[in-house]
């Protein structure tokens, strides 16, 4: 079992040999893109910001037509959601015309859920978050079921748009053996800051208005109370305490 630990001095995560994985909700986003393409046609391009080429390969193995890896020292570490969204938006603009950008609603590490809305603003398109179901009303209009606390709301949006998905939307496909082999026959394009014409001061920690000042792992302590005495007395006390605590 791999374990990520916290460096108490630098306040950063010590990854060690923990493998990098596709953010689980991004897998759902990719799957949704593949399903739309399989039904209606089109092209799916996977974009990953990070050092590991294996992420792009996995996306290709699932069936993406193309994969682009954004890799540059300038992109991180220390990039907050704004810098990340900016970087992604520059890459998408370089790709050119698009109909739909699909993202996971949040990552399992940061869990801010900020990147999709920020990305939409940078791209100048509408966005819908917490999407649990998508359907096309017309070729340029999408119907989205959006999860809310006790149910869902229906939202319609024109395309192009950014949609952030939840895990309820689908079950990501498992790559086939053939898909895995083909993924290594395809090219993974690697783009750096210069390729996407990004402004250096808007990248990485320089381009991040938020910084992490502290990082705490909460200590979970159990409240303990010892009841002493003869068994019948302790039993009576126990029932009384449980009543007081609202347990019974």
């Amino acid at each position, binding site marked *: *079992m791999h374990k990520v630990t916290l460096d108490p001095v630098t306040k950063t995560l010590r990854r060690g040999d923990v493998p990098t994985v596709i953010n689980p909700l991004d897998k759902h986003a990719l799957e949704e893109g593949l399903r739309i393409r399989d039904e209606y046609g089109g092209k799916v391009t996977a974009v990953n910001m990070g050092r590991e080429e*294996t992420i792009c*390969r*996995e996306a290709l*193995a699932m069936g993406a037509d193309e994969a682009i890896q954004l890799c540059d020292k300038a992109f991180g570490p220390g990039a907050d959601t704004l810098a990340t969204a900016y970087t992604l938006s520059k890459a998408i603009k370089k790709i050119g015309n698009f109909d739909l950008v699909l993202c996971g609603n949040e990552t399992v590490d940061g869990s801010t859920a900020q990147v999709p809305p920020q990305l939409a603003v940078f791209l100048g398109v509408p966005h819908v978050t917490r999407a649990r179901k998508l359907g096309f009303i017309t070729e340029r209009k999408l119907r989205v079921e959006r999860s809310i606390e006790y149910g869902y709301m229906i939202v319609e949006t024109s395309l192009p748009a950014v949609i952030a998905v939840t895990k309820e939307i689908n079950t990501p496909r*498992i*790559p*086939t*053996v*053939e898909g*895995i*082999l083909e*993924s*290594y026959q395809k090219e993974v394009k690697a783009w750096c800051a210069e390729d996407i014409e990004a402004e250096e001061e808007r990248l990485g920690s320089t381009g991040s208005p938020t910084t992490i000042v502290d990082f705490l792992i909460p200590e979970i302590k159990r409240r303990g109370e010892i009841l002493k005495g003869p068994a019948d007395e302790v039993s009576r006390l126990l029932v009384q305490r449980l009543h007081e605590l609202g347990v019974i």
Partner: protein
Amino acid sequence: MDFSFTPEQEMLRKTVREFAEKEIAPKVDQMDETGKVPMDLVKRMGELGFGGVIISKEYGGTGIGHLARVIILEEIGRVSAAMANTLQIDHLGESPIIYFGTDEQKKKWLPSLASGKKIGALALTEPVGGSDVLGIQAVAKKEGDAYVINGRKCWITNSHISDVCGVIAKTDEKELTCFIVEKGTHGFTPGREEDKFGLRGCNTGEIVLENCKVPAENMIGKPGDGLRIALSCISNVGRSGVGAAALGLVCRCLEEAVKYANQRTLYGKPIANLQAIQWLITDIYMDYEISRLTAYYAAWLRDQGARCDAENSLAKFWATRGAVRCAERLIDIFGAYGVLKGYVPQRLLRDAWPLVSAAGTSEIMRLVMAGSALKKFA
């Protein structure tokens, strides 16, 4: 010496593990309870391309080879040795066609086997012949442009679920011949299905051949090639496959042992701190490392086109007997919990035992290794 896997093999391992954990694991208890083969999972393995790994692209497979095959079987075996064995017998059923079939025969059967639309098996063993291969009594008599086969096969994995079955029968007193018999052929029927105490969910049973008429074009190779075909396929595909399934089981034993030892506390500390438990874990660890190295080495040799009967026998012998040892050690670590039906160690022990004699007993493995050692070191 480069012991690393290729990026494709690493991704394959990760993918198969995901499939096994997400799709096979939820059905393991039910399989163990009912003994029934989950055909939906068998179909899924076909859809994912696991059936075509030793079939070349020309005939609808991916041809990724034997080492990749071991990785797939290991990862499935880690969750369910029963499913791993079902898959590896599918490959065994393909192998006479792959390695000894004509181009027409390959085109006829391999694409549907590669895609998982059909499932393979190989029927050799009989009540009087298994280790004693030449003792088999099934007979194939030529009649015109067909052969009529009569006999009874036992201990055949996938007996009741296979669509394409290699059958070894005598065309003469000391002449064994291999035929492909398709499901639905008149006179070819599954017989009794065995109720094993372990490896449940992997079908084992009899095949009854009663005046089963098979076209002569279904013969693989020539009359008399059957012994060579059977032994080659069982050695290179069957034994390798059983070893890989057992390797997966050993890996699971190690994981469960470490997890439990870190969680269970005695004397105020996890039992992993106790030397006695550490020695048990070491024993499992050693079996794991030896099993995986011998399995990978044999598969690598096969991928290079080298002869590897002794290596396959060694890998199969070590991993299967190792699986039994490791499951016993695991039960030792779990203490009384190890024998409860709701805990995994007892199932691992029950699943390990049937693998020991699959594709040849331990004693036959020793004979193969002895033959090689006596020749090599003379």
